């Protein structure tokens, strides 16, 4: 273990690892500062680098982007009242009010420090929980792994709370796509129409790039640019501004915000955009000056910023230990493992312990890099937030096409990206969420492989999934996740109709 720790740490702390982290942080800050560009899209754009960079170096870049992306969204939220990412939505409530009062420097400093400290708390959770959980998960066989992945897919339910059926449909559509290509057990070609490029299956990365990026490109190009007034802001000083974090109310906001972020991050499928509002609300309720929230008080920045950064560490726990994503960004990161030919989940800790430690150290470094670069680069990021859509989106489109092409030097892959882009646009148009489909694409192959392997082990007897306790628990939990919203809907509908019936009776009596 010590060897793996030293090996992982030395890779993450090598000059290549630190440079990759720095580049990732710069991209993350710039991407999240640009309204409309999400962290997921930034991640998608650098994902092709998984092919050309060694895994630990590529991961240093991804983690830098992830950590900095959580921080960078706050800059435009505070200064322009335009959240750079959905995770920074709650920050603008009090942050922009402070900026309007001429306290922009202080507000940004508080956001950066809160992000950093929240990120460290999330990282601590990852370091403490992940190895222990992975040790337990190492004893799992094919039926348990199937049940866990099945559970991961039912997270669709939480990703698509507005319409469970549409979420499930999108997820199953992703599963259908993964059945194209060679059969995982017999090697028989399925649905390939004798077309050779399809025999390896639908390339995962171009499909994901298309689903995520093309709808954003189209949306970005379909709007008129609006000039933002750039406020004049003195560059905040890093250590001097730390005093702004003093006081019990600030510490309380930080601890509660980070706690909420950590908890929501660990729960698969919820993510930072939800965490920030839950944290903001909790901190407001617990605060001695709860009525001042919304008028521009520092605790209103500390709560969401510490929460969204805590999510980034905590969301890695289910991804690394069980192979199921904690949020949208970790769903994309899960794809990075697949591109590198690495199986995420408990086996990762056994087969690639040095990579796990490189990831743990890399995330810590990413938080420190974000802190340093966050203070230093504020004027540049403000400039980045003003990049016109007419300039930005054509370049993003080129990056998506060239990135997809470069994976195998194949125009077919670029075409796949565009086809899935159209599918993504249609899904957005008709209210089918894209994230469950990506989950289906990411988890589908393993789901089938473990299912078939389990049946082979059980000599074709499907009761193998119900006779092993862990498998049974996860399958029951998955079924509960699927069935509960339907039952709740039926019950509430009955209550509504009986209430209407009673109201009708009373009206008739009167």
């Amino acid at each position: 273990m010590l060897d793996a720790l030293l090996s992982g740490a030395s890779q993450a702390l090598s000059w290549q690892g630190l440079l990759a982290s720095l580049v990732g942080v710069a991209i993350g800050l710039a991407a999240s500062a640009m309204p409309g560009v999400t962290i997921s899209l930034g991640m998608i754009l650098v994902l092709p680098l998984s092919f050309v960079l060694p895994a630990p170096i590529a991961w240093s870049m991804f983690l830098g982007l992830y950590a900095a992306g959580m921080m960078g969204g706050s800059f435009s939220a505070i200064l322009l009242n335009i959240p750079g990412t959905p995770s920074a939505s709650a920050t603008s409530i009090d942050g922009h009010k402070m900026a309007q009062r001429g306290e922009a420097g202080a507000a940004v400093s508080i956001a950066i420090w809160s992000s950093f400290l929240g990120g460290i708390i999330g990282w601590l959770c990852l370091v403490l929980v992940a190895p222990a959980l992975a040790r337990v998960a190492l004893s799992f066989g094919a039926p348990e792994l199937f049940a866990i992945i099945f559970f991961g897919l039912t997270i669709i339910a939480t990703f698509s709370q507005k319409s469970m059926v549409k979420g499930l449909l999108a997820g199953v559509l992703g599963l259908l796509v993964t059945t194209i290509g060679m059969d995982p057990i017999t090697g028989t070609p399925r649905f390939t129409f004798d077309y050779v490029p399809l025999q390896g299956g639908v390339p995962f990365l171009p499909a994901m790039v298309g689903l995520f990026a093309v709808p954003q490109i189209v949306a970005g190009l379909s709007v008129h640019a609006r000039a933002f007034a750039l406020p004049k802001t003195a560059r905040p000083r890093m250590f001097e501004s730390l005093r702004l974090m003093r006081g019990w109310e600030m510490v309380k906001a930080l601890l509660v915000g980070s706690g909420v972020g950590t908890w929501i991050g660990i729960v698969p499928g919820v993510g930072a955009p939800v965490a920030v509002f839950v944290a903001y609300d909790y901190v407001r309720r617990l605060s001695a000056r709860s009525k001042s929230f919304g008028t521009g008080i520092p605790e209103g920045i500390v709560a969401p910023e510490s929460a969204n950064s805590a999510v980034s560490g905590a969301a890695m726990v289910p991804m690394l230990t069980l192979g199921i994503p904690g949020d949208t960004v970790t769903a994309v990161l899960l794809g990075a493992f697949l591109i590198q030919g690495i199986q995420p989940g408990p086996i990762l800790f056994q087969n690639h312990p040095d990579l796990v430690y490189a990831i743990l150290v890399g995330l810590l470094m990413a938080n420190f890099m974000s802190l340093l670069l966050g203070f230093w680069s504020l004027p540049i990021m403000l400039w980045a937030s003003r990049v016109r859509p007419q300039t930005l989106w054509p370049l993003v489109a080129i990056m998506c096409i060239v990135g997809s092409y470069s994976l195998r030097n194949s125009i077919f892959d670029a075409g796949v990206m565009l086809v899935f882009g159209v599918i993504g646009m249609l899904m957005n148009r008709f209210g089918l969420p894209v994230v469950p489909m990506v989950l289906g694409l990411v988890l589908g192959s393993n789901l089938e492989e473990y299912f078939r392997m389990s049946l082979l082990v059980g000599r074709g007897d499907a009761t193998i999934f119900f006779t092993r306790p862990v498998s049974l628990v996860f399958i029951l939990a998955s079924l509960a996740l699927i069935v509960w919203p339907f039952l709740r809907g039926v019950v509430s509908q009955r209550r509504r109709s009986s209430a209407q019936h009673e109201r009708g009776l009373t009206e008739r009596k009167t």
Partner: protein
Amino acid sequence: MRMDRKIGAVLLIVGAVYAYLITQLPSQRMPDDVGEALVPWLTVGVFVLLSLILIVKKSNDGGVEAEEITVSEEQTGRPRSGHGVLTIAAMAVYIAVLPYIGFFISTLAFAFGMMRWAGSRRLGVDVVIAVVATLVIQLTFTEVLMVPLPTGSWLDGLLKHA
């Protein structure tokens, strides 16, 4: 609600086509294996079931679900209609000509054309951005990441003739 029914019907057709394709799969089984068709059958079964639920259920969605990835109108301005199809068409043309005229010329043309078409009216700035961005992307991929980009079969042919 009516829209959900239409979506459900379209997805039902997709499911039916997929089910037909499953029946065309060759049957090869290892001992104790369930065969390559079982998982597709199970998956399409769930897909058809969900499509039917979408058709028959009373909708309480309240319209299109907001995704994390959408660009909100308040953030960036007023949306323009009909641009989606043209953007996709432009990207398709760019992908189609990429192997024939090469990365540099096609990317330069695409970047400049898209910026102008999207409403940018600063000719000099647009040209500079298109040239610089194309060069930066080309150098990053070919020199830093060692990924060869298409040089263009037509251009290669022309150069050979010359």
